[in-house]
């Protein structure tokens, strides 16, 4: 049974089933061991794998491992391992099972060689992940998860429509380059765009991720959006539209992130900003750019998980996560603070940290292909990343004002998970060749040339200087108890109001129609009653004798007619 063609999602689903029936240490051990074995199994594959199957008249490829998908496969296993380890202390079977099913669905989608298999896992991703939001078990989380699920399932339905059109035009379900020169491709891009959090389609992410459980968000941050990035990298490399979409995604969330109060929401916006870099790289589409996008996805999953873990630890230990309510926690959570700062340095792309070795490939590709304005925009976005994720997260959680909270360090499994992620961030940053060897295209890219290191350090240090200066001058926007409107306003407020208005209109016109009808009916009954009361004409009692007379008249009339028309 243990052969190279065993699909990688199977161990995850098996682990989820085992998590349901085991408890305590045994469950922890099983979950970690199975994911580790599955990762090793993938690592030891020495060639590409292709499993084919026929379904009705179609040739399906339910399991395909090649150079592009396997990189994501490795990092998905790392992310799953870290997220499970981080959640080990949680005594909630539903969360463990949902987390494993969710990770397994992501792995399944990754290795789907045809669009129909992709669709199945695409929908499984949506359903399983919603439980991680609901596991918070508040009405707030329930509603947020509902909105999340509706949008995610919608994405799947659009994907199904797109793949049917694609099948009709091309006659094949194989999942390779799709492009946007036919309708099916455009419709599918919309479906993928929802999961990849394209601007305006992104609000499910910033709505639901901050509402999930402290450990659930770590799972969520890794899989859904990066599956979408993988799908874009396979189906739409070199699609020029994506360059502009990506640049926009890299920019607009920065402004939102700066003014958010919920620190996990800051990270959610920052997640979209990071996806922007990847989408941009895919849009540029050269070997260097796609390599950049893939390696950025790889390192991003790890440092974003680290940041979400550190905020999850703060939330778990203090029960608070708003910038206005936490602060000064470095006093009693120094280890968490340092680990968080390693994540922050990685996402900001300081030299020697993992973000640096990945993002620079995308930047270099943008300049190589002559996209100078895009390059400038990405450079601004890089300064913005430092601002909102690199400084804002550690600063407001662990420094800034003293909240008076003195929580202790989180449980050991949480610290260990964060430490593993932090070590990976540093290791990849220091030995980038480790990552570059895995990339889909061979590369001799060297991020550590003098001018590149110097320019990036200059950019980051002067951005920090600007933050310090504006903060000391009191120009920096203070943390405030408030929320900020975004695209979700359209359905949470505007559509709600429209529906309410429509409801009121229907109710009032319905009431009008009903009351008119009621009036008519009561007038009719009054009339009938009046006719049939003892004094009314309808109440006259006719004797049998007169009835006989009427029948005689009727028969006479009949006879007369019969005689007049004998035929």
């Amino acid at each position, binding site marked *: 049974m243990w052969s190279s063609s065993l699909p990688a999602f199977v161990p995850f689903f098996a682990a989820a089933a085992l998590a349901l029936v085991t408890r305590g240490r045994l469950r922890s051990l099983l979950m970690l061991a199975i994911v580790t074995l599955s990762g090793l199994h993938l690592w030891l594959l020495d060639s590409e794998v292709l499993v084919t199957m026929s379904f009705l008249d179609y040739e399906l490829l339910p399991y395909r491992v090649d150079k592009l998908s396997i990189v994501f496969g490795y990092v998905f296993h790392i992310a799953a391992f870290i997220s499970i380890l981080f959640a080990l202390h949680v005594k909630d079977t539903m969360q463990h099972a949902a987390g494993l099913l969710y990770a397994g669905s992501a792995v399944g989608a990754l290795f789907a060689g045809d669009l129909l298999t992709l669709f199945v896992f695409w929908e499984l991703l949506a359903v399983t992940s919603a439980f991680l939001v609901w596991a*918070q078990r*508040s*009405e*707030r989380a329930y*509603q947020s998860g509902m909105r999340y699920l509706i949008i995610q399932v919608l994405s799947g339905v659009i994907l199904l429509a797109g793949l049917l059109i694609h099948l009709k035009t091309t006659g094949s379900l194989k999942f390779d380059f799709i492009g946007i020169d036919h309708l099916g491709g455009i419709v599918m891009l919309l479906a993928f765009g929802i999961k990849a959090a394209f601007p305006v389609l992104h609000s499910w992410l910033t709505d639901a991720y*901050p509402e999930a459980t*402290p450990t659930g968000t770590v799972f969520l941050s890794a899989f859904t959006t990066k599956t979408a990035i993988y799908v874009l990298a396979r189906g739409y490399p070199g699609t020029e539209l994506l360059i502009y979409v990506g640049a926009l995604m890299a920019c607009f969330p*920065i*402004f*939102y992130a*700066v*003014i958010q*109060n*919920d620190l*996990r929401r800051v990270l959610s916006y920052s997640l979209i900003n990071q996806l922007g870099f990847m989408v941009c790289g895919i849009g540029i589409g050269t070997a260097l750019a796609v390599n950049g996008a893939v390696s950025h996805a790889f390192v991003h999953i790890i440092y974003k998980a680290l940041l979400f873990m550190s905020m999850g630890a703060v*939330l778990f230990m203090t*029960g608070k*996560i*708003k910038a206005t309510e936490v602060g000064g926690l*470095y*006093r009693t959570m120094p280890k968490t603070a340092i680990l968080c700062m390693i994540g922050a340095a990685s996402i900001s792309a300081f030299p020697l940290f993992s973000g640096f070795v990945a993002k620079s490939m995308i930047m270099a590709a943008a*300049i190589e292909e002559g996209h*100078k304005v895009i*390059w400038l925009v990405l*450079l*601004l976005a890089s*300064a*913005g990343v*430092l*601002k909102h994720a690199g400084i804002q997260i550690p600063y407001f959680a662990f*420094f800034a004002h003293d909240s008076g909270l003195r929580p202790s360090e989180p449980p050991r499994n949480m610290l260990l998970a964060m430490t593993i992620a932090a070590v990976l961030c540093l290791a990849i940053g220091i030995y980038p060749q480790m990552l570059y060897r895995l990339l889909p295209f061979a590369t001799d890219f060297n991020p550590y*040339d*003098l*001018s*590149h290191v*110097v*320019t*990036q*350090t*200059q*950019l980051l*240090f*002067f*951005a*920090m*200087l*600007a933050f*310090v*200066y504006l903060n000391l001058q009191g*120009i*920096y*926007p203070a943390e405030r*108890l*408030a*929320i*900020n*409107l975004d695209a979700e306003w359209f359905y*949470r*407020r505007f559509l*709600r109001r429209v529906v309410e208005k429509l409801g009121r209109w229907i109710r009032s016109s319905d009431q009008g129609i009903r009351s008119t009808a009621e009036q008519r009916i009561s007038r009719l009954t009054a009339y009938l009653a009046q006719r049939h009361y003892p004094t009314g004409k309808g109440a006259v009692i006719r004797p049998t004798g007169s009835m006989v007379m009427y029948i005689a008249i009727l028969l006479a009339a009949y006879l007369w007619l019969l005689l007049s028309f004998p035929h």
Partner: protein
Amino acid sequence: MADEKRYLFDNPRNVKAVLYLLYASCGLLLLVDFIIHRHITSHWEKLLGFYCIYGFIGCSAIIIGSKWLRALVEREEDYYTRDELSRPEERHVEQ
């Protein structure tokens, strides 16, 4: 609070030290720009200290821009939830 333990950054001198370290590094990095020869791939980069200026102005622009954005989109915390939630005690809870 006399009995409370004093931590690293409770002492303003330590905070000052960190800030001076930042100022010194920034000065040094600016100086480096005059000494080494960077690869120039676009004509903007020919400007001495381009990355320093861009980093400083870019970051300031983001912060000021987001203040404007806040003026436009900020709403009270229960803006959505007062319509959506039946349990009033949850309306302000962020998690």
